[in-house]
């Protein structure tokens, strides 16, 4: 029943928020996301002490066609749930000193999104998983469209059609699996224990892979991403890059690998090569970017490229590294986009060139921005390091040359990130009369929390590994 509570808190909140107005909306949203966070901590302790039994929920939805609802929990799901519910209060809080039109709808959509994301991560039946996957798309579309920047109509429509196309391919794959066995079961346990169903695994692999590759995004399915990140409102971008991306990488581990093992074995090299190409390509493009948000968008492609490469390398260190890195990247990228938003909001200037000297007027901001950047470029003792190290090691185990190219991510990442920091924050101000107040209270809370998490996770990544280890070991078999 705990799974139902996890789902119902944000859903009830989303409905309640529709009836609130003004400042009440964001306060309510913050309260509810905090309640959900507290509940997640409680769920974590339950999971630690009593195991997954308390989360089990299985019900029949319809007899013909056979549809079941199955919620459950394992270490992998729990990590993702923790990430989601940890980031949501931060994302809500980050909007506190911004004026929003129709804030109640905005926050309602955001909590609806939280509901759908939680659903994606605890669904263990293909059909219900697909429904949540789709549901997550609708609120983020409206968030980016209604509160977005220039050219939003075109960009968000492209984003929507792109991802929906992927989803439909996945739906087709599930239809296949549905008809593959006489039981018509889409249950995760059933599918992963009978992976040799009569279906053609090559087909299945590509159907699932494209769906997830669009979401992650892996080159060449990434073209929706930079535009969408750049035009979406910052809180929308945080949701997209911090959590929604992870839906794709999580789904690779949860659905693609166990259910289509033969297909994965057959196409592993293509997938991993695409991921590595993505790393190098996105890093190089990031160096050339003039726009701050776009630079972060491309850096995000590079980072998740490494995650998916590690997953497709198919060994334990890759799987574990990917889980750690998903968590770490989720936190870092939210921090990065928040810093970008702070800069752009105060200076009305989104380009990397032509700014500078922020450190002189806002030392606190500069410090925390630096910490987040260090996390993102994988400096030892930060959270980015643990994950990237394990991922690179796993790619190295698969193929040395690929690992060499994948390793470029650390060097190139340092190049574009530090250069950006140097140009924007250090030095003396290029723009005259720059008004740059230092951090407000809510910004301080968000950035300090993120900064602390970066170090805590970097020094002490054990809990995540412990949580996910049994699941991932199972996957290797």
């Amino acid at each position, binding site marked *: 029943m705990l799974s139902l509570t996890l789902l119902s808190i944000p859903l009830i909140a989303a409905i309640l928020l529709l009836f609130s107005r003004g400042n009440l909306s964001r306060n309510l949203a913050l309260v509810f996301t905090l309640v959900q966070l507290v509940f997640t901590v409680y769920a974590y302790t339950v999971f630690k002490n009593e195991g997954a039994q308390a989360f089990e929920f299985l019900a029949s939805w319809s007899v013909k066609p056979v549809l079941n609802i199955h919620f459950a929990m394992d270490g992998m799901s729990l990590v993702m749930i923790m990430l989601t519910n940890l980031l949501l209060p931060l994302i809500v809080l980050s909007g506190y000193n911004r004026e929003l039109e129709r804030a109640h709808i905005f926050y309602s959509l955001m909590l609806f999104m939280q509901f759908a994301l939680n659903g994606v991560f605890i669904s263990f039946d293909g059909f219900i998983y697909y*429904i949540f996957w789709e549901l997550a798309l609708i609120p983020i579309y409206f968030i980016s469209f*209604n509160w977005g920047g220039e050219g939003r109509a075109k960009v968000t429509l492209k984003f929507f059609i792109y991802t929906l196309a992927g989803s*439909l391919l996945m739906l087709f794959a599930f239809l296949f699996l549905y008809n593959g066995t006489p039981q018509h079961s889409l249950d995760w346990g059933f599918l992963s224990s009978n992976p040799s169903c009569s279906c053609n695994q090559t087909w299945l692999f590509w159907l699932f892979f494209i769906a997830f590759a669009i979401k992650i995004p892996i080159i060449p399915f990434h073209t929706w991403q930079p535009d969408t990140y750049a035009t979406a409102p910052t809180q929308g971008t945080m949701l997209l890059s911090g959590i929604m991306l992870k839906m794709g990488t999580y789904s690779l581990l949860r659905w693609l690998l166990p259910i289509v093992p033969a297909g994965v074995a057959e196409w592993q090299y293509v997938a991993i090569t695409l991921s590595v190409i993505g790393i190098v390509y996105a890093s190089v493009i990031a160096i050339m970017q003039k726009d701050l948000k776009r630079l972060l968008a491309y850096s995000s492609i590079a980072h998740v490229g490494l995650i998916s490469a590690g997953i497709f390398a198919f060994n334990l260190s890759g799987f574990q590294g990917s889980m750690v890195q998903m968590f770490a990247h989720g936190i870092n990228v939210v921090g990065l986009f928040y810093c970008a938003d702070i800069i752009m909001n105060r200076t009305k200037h989104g380009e990397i060139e032509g700014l500078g000297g922020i450190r002189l007027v806002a030392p606190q901001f500069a410090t925390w921005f630096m910490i987040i950047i260090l996390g993102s470029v994988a400096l030892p003792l930060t959270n980015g390091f643990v994950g990237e190290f394990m991922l690179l090691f796993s790619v190295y185990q698969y193929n040395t040359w690929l690992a060499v190219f994948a390793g470029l991510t650390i060097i190139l990442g340092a190049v574009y990130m530090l250069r950006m920091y140097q140009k924007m924050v250090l030095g003396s101000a290029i723009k005259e009369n720059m008004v740059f107040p230092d951090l407000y209270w809510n910004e301080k809370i968000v950035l300090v929390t993120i900064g602390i998490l970066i170090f805590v996770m970097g020094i002490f990544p054990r809990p995540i590994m412990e949580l996910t280890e049994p699941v991932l070991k199972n996957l290797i078999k």
Partner: protein
Amino acid sequence: MNTLIYTAILGFLCMVLEIFNVRKLIVPALVLGLALIFGLNLNDWNSNQSFFNNMVRIDNFSVAFSGLAIFVTLLIFIMATDFYAEDQNHISDYMSILTFILVGALMMFNYANLTMLFLGIETLSIALYVMAGSKRFDIRSNEAGFKYFLMGSFASGFLLFGIALIFGASGSFDLAKIADYTIQNQQNISPLFYTGMFLVVFAMLFKVSAAPFHFWAPDVYHGSPALVTAYMSTLVKIAAFAAFYKLMSTTFFYSFEKIAPVLNVVAIITLAVGNLMALSQTNFKRLLAYSGISHAGYLMLVILTAKNQTAGALFYYSLAYALITLAAFAVAIPVFKAANSEDIDAFNGLAKKNPMHAAALSMAMIGLAGIPPFAGFLGKYYIFTEALQSGYFYTTLVAIFASMIGVYYYFKVILAMYGQPANESKMEQSFNYNLVLWVCLALSVVFGIFPGPILNIF
């Protein structure tokens, strides 16, 4: 049987009420009458009777679809109060003709004899020709009525000719006896029979507006008064598909192999044409016409699997489609009226002026595109599983791609509402439209979340 007779009486009553000059009462009386008939109809559940020498058969199939048709008509009539508010002089004519469309539809649900099918289709069509042209001084409406009449007459001719040939081969109009004939003469079914079968099927394809017999649909939907378009795209489509399904599943199931490849190709073409043509539409009614064609494509998958499936999928999908289309029209009609235009531009900036309606229409569009949690998604899912199970692999793949394309044109409307600056027209709030709107959306979500009772109704 009672359902059919009482509905016909209701139609006549309408005209009588005009004689006594109580026009104001017509719509309430009709709504009340239909509500009673809806109850009466449910009474026939599980009764399985036949009437008039087995010309008419009441079984669960006909009761379920009759119920749906009466419900749709009820909603349409509720909207009619406001729609015809400025045309009170003719309201009795309009309402009685609309009622007779329902009579024709009811006959198409419970026919057990090909002549009865023909009568049903003609009753429905002739009434519809009149309604399509009912805006007498509008050239578009005239065009719609005339075009529909000409094309429809051709289709009726096909149907009649086909029925005659089938009679020539099998010696009967009765559905069961024709089926017996195909079973008993498996080896030497007369070519006459096949010719007849093809002609009948073509006529039905015309009625359901499947490509390449769809050319009438956009023009007729475009030209007809908006309420009639709503009626056409819901009730008439459902009636045609139910009749078609009954024909395929009870009569032609034995000779199905001969026609399956044709239907398969028709399904693919319909999906392609409906969705691709919809992309470039700027008129909302034309857009819905093409969307109707593409939904006909999805329903063709049901017809393809009619041989070995119950009608549950057809019923569920029809219900989902009707509810969500009516919801769309319940927003669109007042918007059209305010903007004095039926283009998608009429919705520009609706989100600013009328956020509730914009949200509702967005939901309707998302529902039409088949995205959960609306009933349309589950309907599609069910249809696709069945089609895949029956081995229509490529057709299902085309249907999946068609769904992708669909998102684009449905979202054009959402983009107009949220992305464009508002126009000046002011929309009136009307209780009736809002009632229909929220009832439809609520039911659509409810059936989407609790599909069991409807999916397994038969």
